[in-house]
């Protein structure tokens, strides 16, 4: 228990926001490939190893120009994420990044951190080099830093680029600017006020992909009983310059947060019975949990923070920190699509363990629920 809730300097991305439960992370990824090389998937293992060496050297050079260090991380993505194995990535904000969905690509990748966890470098997944940054800082700031590192790196080893198509990648979605942006949002307000669908449709029209996110550990069940308020919004249209794309994404994140906050205020103003029902349900689900899936645990934990934001629940500073940590720990998983086949037998231990984790946090909140008349 104490281990799971250890303090971490990097957990602040969650607490920094006044509405900590709306948009809780912005992620920037930039993908590059070495000039004159076959893309990783079609390289021989020794070709890939050479590519990794070249890309790593270039990255070190680029990072050094920005006075940052590159530290290689030993192990696979799975190993790095596993808390039991002292997961190196545990205290970094890289949980749940939109990594390649191709398991083979992820399995052959290797990793490094840049600037003490300011960015994560991934070698030879779909691309020779991908840089990820994730925090709640605006996209523009995050992108500028990564771009500068890559500009430095390109002096050491040029990246595959074409005047017509921009930067080249095995994945056509990465071609052009090589930029991929995403943010996590928790849209309880829109969901409860039944205005989520128009918001999601608007995002779709604007060229964003919204993926419902759940955070199962490997083999965990999917989403069946989750309220479905948590989404990953990804930029899939890469038209224009990096600056356009980054600006558009910042504006979208801001606008969506604003709409969500308005929805929450409206629910509050109307003293919506759905709202108090939702909060009461979430607190009860946590307080009496016996078997809890990852997605459900995350949803009820976020619901408590949400209710606290709206002053429907009072949380002491330590309680608040504990819930924020809980969300952080639970978010620590990869994004899977909603149609991932569920294996009900898997992770039964996890479900009980998770429930045991929730109960002592949620039970003290029970007295705050309004008794029924």
């Amino acid at each position, binding site marked *: 228990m104490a281990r799971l809730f250890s303090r971490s300097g990097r957990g602040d991305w969650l607490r920094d926001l006044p509405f900590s439960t709306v948009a809780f992370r912005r992620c920037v990824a930039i993908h590059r490939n070495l000039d004159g090389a*076959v893309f990783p998937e079609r390289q*021989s293992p020794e070709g890939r190893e050479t590519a990794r060496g070249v890309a790593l050297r270039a990255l070190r050079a680029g990072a050094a120009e920005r006075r940052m260090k590159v530290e290689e991380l030993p192990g696979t993505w799975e190993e790095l994420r596993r808390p039991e194995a002292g997961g190196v990535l545990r205290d970094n904000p890289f949980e749940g990044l939109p990594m390649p969905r191709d398991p083979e690509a992820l399995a052959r990748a290797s990793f490094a951190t840049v600037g003490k966890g300011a960015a994560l470098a991934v070698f030879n997944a779909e691309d020779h080099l991908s840089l990820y940054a994730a925090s709640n800082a605006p996209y523009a700031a995050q992108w500028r830093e990564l771009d500068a590192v890559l500009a430095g790196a390109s002096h050491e080893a040029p990246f595959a680029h074409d005047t017509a198509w921009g930067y080249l990648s095995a*994945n056509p979605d990465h071609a052009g600017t090589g930029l991929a942006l995403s943010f996590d949002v928790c849209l309880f307000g829109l969901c409860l006020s039944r205005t989520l669908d128009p918001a999601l449709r608007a995002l779709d029209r604007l060229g964003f992909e919204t993926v419902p996110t759940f955070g199962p550990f490997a083999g965990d069940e999917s989403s069946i009983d989750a309220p479905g308020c948590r989404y990953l919004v990804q930029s899939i249209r890469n038209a224009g310059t990096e600056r356009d794309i980054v600006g558009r994404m910042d504006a979208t994140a801001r606008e969506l947060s604003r709409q969500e906050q308005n929805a929450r205020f409206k629910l509050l103003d109307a003293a919506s019975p759905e709202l108090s029902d939702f909060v009461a349900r979430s607190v009860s689900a946590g307080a009496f949990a016996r078997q809890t899936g990852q997605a459900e645990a995350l949803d009820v934990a976020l619901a408590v923070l949400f209710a606290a934001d709206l002053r429907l629940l009072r949380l002491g500073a330590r309680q608040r920190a504990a819930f924020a940590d809980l969300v952080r720990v639970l978010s620590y998983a990869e994004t899977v699509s909603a149609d991932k086949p569920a294996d009900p037998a898997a992770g039964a231990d996890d479900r009980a363990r998770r429930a045991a984790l929730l109960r002592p946090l949620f039970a003290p909140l029970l007295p705050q629920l309004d008794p029924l008349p």
Partner: protein
Amino acid sequence: MQCEICHLHPATRAVTRKIAGEPRELYVCDACARTAASPVAAADGAGPGRDVSDLLFSIGFPVPASKKAKDRICPGCGLSRGELREKRRFGCPRCYETFETDVRTFLSEQIPAAPRSRETPAEALREREVAKLKASLAKAVKEDRYEDASTIADRLRALDPDGGASAPERGDG
């Protein structure tokens, strides 16, 4: 007969390469013989003369035989059009020339009309250019060269759309 790799040029020679462990003869043009020789030779056996670029270009598996005459194959990495369409993944930078129409299709799936571009090589360069333009704008205004100033201002706007001219963001008060 046409070259079995690019299907563009007449085949001028036969090359033998190992495909799935079996030696196979392919009829190829001069250009493909040259480009195809290096990756396949590199994949087959390591000679002492191999340098980094050989390794970077070395592909991990044999070039598949084309099933149909029309199934074009990338000379850089041996990816066939069929494979590309099935997996929606390119094999190497040369795939972008080889399968240009497919690139267009893939990219138009996600982009309506706008051009793709990048800021070369980095933000730093652009900022330097903006600073330079701002200085010459100030100079032009000072010297009453208003036509020049307006041209410079246009260039500045193109480079830095949200620099100074745009309305400041509203705070939450």
